[in-house]
């Protein structure tokens, strides 16, 4: 199980790196929203893998909060872009 957890964490780190590349490069605001959304999902998956590794659920409340806040943030910025343009 330890090997699996390490493989998962390395894979998630690589995925987060690729999301960051798109987040920095853009070019438009919607691109960055999608990248940030994916990055947040990687963070959620990372916390879940960490919880699976230790077997205790101290951080699971954080998990629920982060996933819901991610949704609120995405919708808010999307509304903003729709009115103001996203170049």
């Amino acid at each position: 199980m330890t090997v699996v957890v390490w493989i998962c964490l390395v894979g998630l780190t690589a995925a987060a790196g690729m999301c960051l590349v798109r987040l920095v490069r853009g070019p438009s605001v919607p691109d960055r929203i999608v990248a940030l959304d994916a990055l947040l999902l990687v963070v959620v998956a990372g916390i879940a893998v960490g919880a699976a590794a230790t077997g205790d659920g101290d951080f699971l409340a954080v998990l629920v909060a982060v996933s819901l806040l991610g949704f609120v943030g995405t919708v808010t910025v999307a509304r903003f872009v729709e009115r103001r343009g996203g170049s």
Partner: protein
Amino acid sequence: MSAALDVLSAVLLLLGVGFALLAGLGLVRFPDIFSRMHAATKPATLGLLCVVLGAALQMEDGSDAVKLLLVGAFQFITAPVAAHMIGRAAYRSGTGDLDGLVVDELKDAG
């Protein structure tokens, strides 16, 4: 914890991480916002569900497993709404590649 459940949980975790990797690859390589959304929304539902189920199988406490499944349920409710908002914002702000569209029903709807 039986060995069979351990293996199932490991497979689910690795599958979810594989989806996350594919999403990252798609985000970097795909040419425009709509195809990038296509790549990024796969781990948002199926991939996250795999990770969450895999982690839930490892939990010693039943209420922890319920919390993990709650995250999966929230994601299933919110992901379509978020994707819809981003897609419409990209369409209306003109940042998407609108010439590459095969069908444009939003134009007829106004």
